[in-house]
């Protein structure tokens, strides 16, 4: 495993007595694409701004490569940021924008010109050097902002919801672009977003945050398939979140039915949360289901049908390629492997976070 490049130690930050980060600890490995994911106000942007040096933590330390940079101003940090609203210098040309950081480092003119060419090529905007930012589309401007940052060869690139202002198609294109860039440049990306799909698509590691606390750290697959608590399950993708009681290992009871599962070591008769992804819900004949109910709602979503089924006094969200018309009686089964058991929130803070979501 690569070594820790950034290490946040016990970071606390508050605005107007409103605690945004509380004893926050996180490390980022070299060459990792790490995403801070969470709803607005969860502290993800503050974390990024503390790493960038635009905010000072009230307490705690920011370590870069083992060196304490907590009090180093942003212009002396070997990292670069790509801002949400591009933040291009509108009165300069594209080339001048890209050259801005290099000129400050007193690089030679040929070096700078080469770099501009290289960077424009990298972001697929060859020949745009003499244009003004205003004459470019949003996606192009964002790519220039990225080019402007990476020509400085930062150790880490910080990206603050860089695709937030783009439309869906452009956003998806840019996601692939970013993955490609990351692979080509081999630098560490710290990415902030509230869009779970973006996070799942691009990241090596996702940090799910809420109310200034880390809810779960893991690979996209981990986070999606094995959410550690109801918040993560709910925030990442659609899900059916149900109160349940763990009767014993591999047997859980909810909605007045007993279900086989694969989880162990939760104890006996222990209250838990169960999460079942909509695509894992299997509809069958009423008599074959573990429980049964009636289809109340159908929407065609293209790839699949999204249905709501009222069964066991719970409104199930179901994704299926087979359509069941409204009013049809159906049974529900779930593969034991697809039933994810989670502990109920323990601490008070977690509880609060959960309720407010």
């Amino acid at each position, binding site marked *: 495993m690569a070594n820790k490049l950034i290490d946040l130690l016990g970071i606390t930050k508050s605005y107007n007595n409103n605690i945004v980060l509380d004893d926050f600890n996180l490390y980022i490995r070299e060459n990792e694409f790490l995403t801070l994911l969470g709803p607005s106000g969860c502290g993800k942007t503050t974390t990024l701004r503390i790493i*960038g040096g635009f905010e000072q933590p009230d307490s705690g330390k920011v370590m870069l490569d083992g060196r304490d940079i907590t009090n180093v101003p942003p212009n002396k940090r070997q990292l670069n940021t790509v801002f949400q609203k591009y933040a291009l210098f509108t*009165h300069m040309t594209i080339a001048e924008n890209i050259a801005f*950081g290099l000129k400050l480092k007193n690089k030679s003119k040929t070096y700078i010109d080469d770099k501009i060419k290289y960077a424009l090529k990298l972001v697929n905007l060859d020949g745009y050097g003499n244009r003004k930012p205003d004459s470019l589309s949003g996606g192009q401007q964002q790519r220039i902002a990225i080019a402007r940052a990476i020509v400085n060869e930062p150790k880490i690139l910080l990206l603050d919801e860089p695709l937030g202002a783009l439309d869906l198609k452009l956003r998806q294109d840019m996601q692939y672009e970013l993955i490609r860039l990351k692979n080509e440049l081999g630098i560490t990306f710290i990415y902030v977003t509230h869009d779970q799909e973006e996070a799942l698509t691009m990241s090596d590691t996702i940090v799910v945050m809420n109310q200034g606390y880390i809810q779960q750290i893991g690979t996209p697959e981990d986070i999606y398939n094995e959410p550690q608590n109801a918040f993560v399950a709910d925030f990442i993708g659609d899900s059916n979140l149900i109160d349940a009681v763990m009767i014993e290992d591999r047997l859980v009871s909810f909605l007045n039915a007993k279900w086989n599962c694969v989880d162990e070591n939760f104890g006996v008769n222990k209250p838990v949360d169960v999460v079942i992804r909509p695509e894992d819900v299997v509809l069958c004949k009423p008599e074959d289901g573990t429980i049964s109910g009636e289809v109340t709602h159908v929407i065609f979503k293209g790839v699949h049908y999204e249905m709501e089924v009222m069964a066991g006094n719970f409104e199930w969200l179901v994704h299926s390629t087979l359509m069941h018309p409204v009013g049809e009686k159906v049974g529900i089964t779930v593969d034991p492997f697809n039933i994810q058991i989670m502990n109920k929130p323990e601490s008070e803070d977690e509880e609060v976070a959960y309720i407010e979501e």
Partner: protein
Amino acid sequence: MKRFLERFYIAIIFIFLYAPIVMLMVLSFNNSRTRAKWGGFTTGWYRALFQNQAIMEALYNTLFIAIVSSVIATIIGTITCIALSNMKSHSRTVLLGINNIPMLNADIVTGISLMLLFISFGFRFGMHTILLAHITFNIPYVILNVMPKFRQLNPNTYEAALDLGASPVYAFFKVIFPDILPGILSGFLMAFTMSLDDFVITHFTKGAGVDTLSTKIYTEVRKGIKPEMYALSTIIFATVFVLLLFINLAPAKKEKQIISKEKRHTLPQKAVAFAVISILVISTLIYSNLSKDKEGGQVIVYNWGEYLDPEALKIFQEETGIEVIYDEYETNENMYPKIESGAAEYDIVCPSDYMIQKMIEKDLLAQIDFSNIPNIKNIDSNYMEQSKEFDPDNKYSVPYCVGTVGILYNKSMVTESIDSWDVLWDKQYADNILMQDSVRDAFMVALKKLGYSMNSTNEKELEEAKEALIEQKPLTQAYVVDQVRDKMIGNEAAIGVIYSGEAIYSQRENENLEYVIPKEGTNVWIDSWCILKNAPNKENAEKFINFLCRPDIALMNFEYITYSTPNAEARKLIEDEDIRNSQIAFPDLSQYNNLETYQYLGEDADYIYNELWKEIKSK
């Protein structure tokens, strides 16, 4: 039809708005000293304007103050905006509200409070106090213009520059500054225009010898505004008009420029910085040069506007080496508070009779050592005698300009010969009578007609005078000040109460006019030189007064001012026989009865006069 009405309506509005200015512009090309007559087209007033040193100096002061104050205000205002934009939204809103108050505040309040502030800090009034005042009132306008630009800024732009390695200062000038530059420029232009435009605040904060165009123009009010000023006002209007065009067109231009090529932004930036620095340096050099002391010391003179030939000042400076610092006021009532407050230091003033009496009573004047003024012998003894009404022992004042108040009538409209104030009550001249719009002058006429003293404080007499004036009021065409002269010249009225100085001038323009001193007596007014008790240069002041009493100098001033001189020797030097023997300019006072001079009647009497005056005016 509807369309026509719409256009007609708009046309009317614009005519109302611009007719006065068009009038001014037309008069600035009028080849006649009076606005009642069109004397043909001339650009002479414009030429005269640029040859008039006093006006050009005022123009220089105005520009100096406008430029320096708006540059400094722009710098301070912009820095303030940086701070404001980094504040929390609540405190920013509060501070911006506070910032807006001075702009809505009446100028007069700002002016007086600044004056009081300067006095309490013991500042001496001068160019620097005007500058400070202008900077103060300009800052809010700069903030008003610059702040919106900060709000439009993407907050990340500055951070992006830091992120790329720029120091905070570099980031500001390289990234923020170009974006807010349009706001800074329009703020600067607005401040410049405001400063150029200001009269009230300048009036209260200026010191001796410093005049801006607006204060200079105002000092001329007493003698009627000279046509040069029409020319100057036209130029000022054109300048402000062009500046406003710039302000309004600047943003549009800016947008067009975006298309144009690289490096554009660096040029104006450097040019502006260079311009600012050079203006400041040059201005300070010139200013320090101006205020340089002369060897012979100085004398600080506070005089009526247009009440001394500038050429005479030059001669005095050349002969004695004494530098004259010269300041002007427009009325006795404007001069008095400045002297009384002690805010500005002066050596000599030239108040009128009753004001001299008041200043003696308030112990503001110094006794003059007449052994230092041998030229006093040139002054007509009649006027020294008359002066005793307000300066009983001839200890405090030296008569400078004198005159009478009488009746000016148009011989083509009045066939009888007039010799009494009674004619002003004659019904056959109804609607053709002009009265002076001033409380003492109006009461003088009535009191004299009734055979009382014009300095009466007897309530019964005053009541009678009031009734007489109320009775007369329906007959009058108007109570006016300056317009008596112009209306009489323009044959717009038959009879008017007028000062003798104005009468001579009117007669020159319209030979049908005749001036008479009524047999019931009248007011002989005297403006005299006095030395102030706290005069820093008393000796020089006496030298200056002695100089003014020299016949050749008195003659020069008589020709410049055109008001009668009490200097008998000077009168003998007048070449034009008609003028030298004019009974209007040089009446033989001994021939008239009941001549009086205004006295200071005290605050109680002032109050009674004003109350009665209000009654008359409201009828």
